[in-house]
């Protein structure tokens, strides 16, 4: 993840959540968008960086994560399906669902998952959350057929058609997607009354991260083991 190359890297003293400083949150790349910005994402972006990447107004990310947390809490996490087709968000979605009790689907979206009650993997969704509307479109198509509302993490280049609640954020980076789902888990738990505002969650942001073998951390023995397995 590229460092944000100006003096606006966030404060180390300002806490966004217990144990998470603004600086640490911004270091995940949560607000780093893409060179493209769609019309509907304009409202969530602050300014382009000198290298042309659009920067997401992360205050709006936080604000929307909180609204999404209320939405999930009011619907009931157990009635909510969280889907990601892509590997880099898999752990974030799994951990989110473990902590909140939401249902998870990862990888290929089997046709009929929402629409066919006879399909063995059928899920009864009252609310759907997707990590990327572009790659997770199949789940959105089935949600639309049933009139099920959709929350989506949207990057600056995402089209927001058929989405009922946008969470603006970098949905391409492993660390960023981990941060978004970690904050969303917190908000969902706090809003449903099962976590106090100042209480820490069972997992830290790092534990929401999908580790990839191409980027082994030298100090992480597990990574080194998986590297040797290659």
């Amino acid at each position, binding site marked *: 993840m590229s460092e944000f190359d100006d003096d606006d890297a966030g404060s180390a003293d300002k806490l966004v959540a217990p144990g998470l400083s603004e600086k640490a949150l911004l270091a995940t790349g949560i607000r780093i968008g893409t060179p493209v910005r769609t019309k*509907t994402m304009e409202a969530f972006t602050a300014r382009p960086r000198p290298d042309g990447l659009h920067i997401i107004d992360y205050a709006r990310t936080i604000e929307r994560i909180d*609204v*999404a947390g*209320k*939405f999930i809490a*009011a619907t009931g996490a157990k009635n909510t399906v969280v889907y990601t087709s892509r590997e880099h968000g898999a752990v974030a979605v799994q951990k989110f669902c473990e902590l909140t009790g939401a249902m998870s689907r990862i990888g290929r979206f089997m046709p009929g998952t929402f629409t066919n009650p006879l399909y063995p993997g059928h899920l009864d969704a009252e*609310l759907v959350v997707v990590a990327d509307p572009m790659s997770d479109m199949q789940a959105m198509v089935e949600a*639309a*057929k049933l*009139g*099920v*509302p959709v*929350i989506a993490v949207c990057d600056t280049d995402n*089209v*927001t*058609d*058929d*989405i*009922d*609640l*946008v969470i603006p954020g970098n949905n391409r980076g492993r660390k960023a997607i981990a941060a978004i789902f970690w904050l969303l888990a917190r908000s969902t738990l706090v809003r449903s009354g099962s976590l106090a505002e100042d209480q820490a969650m069972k997992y830290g942001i790092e534990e929401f991260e999908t580790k990839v073998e191409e980027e082994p951390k030298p100090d992480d023995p597990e990574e080194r083991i998986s590297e040797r397995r290659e």
Partner: protein
Amino acid sequence: MSQGTVTLPLCNSCNRPIKPAERAVHFSCPNCHETVIWRSEKCRKFSRRYKCVNCGFEGP
């Protein structure tokens, strides 16, 4: 209201009545949960703005 008529919900964005066959969506306001927001198939498709009459929240 005379017998046999139904009141169709109105789309929050375009204010048109929503037909039963339409692939519309409705949900309680994500922010305050106090009002029901209906979005017509078209308005949802085109990402048109909706606004909660209770809390002023604007989506999507």
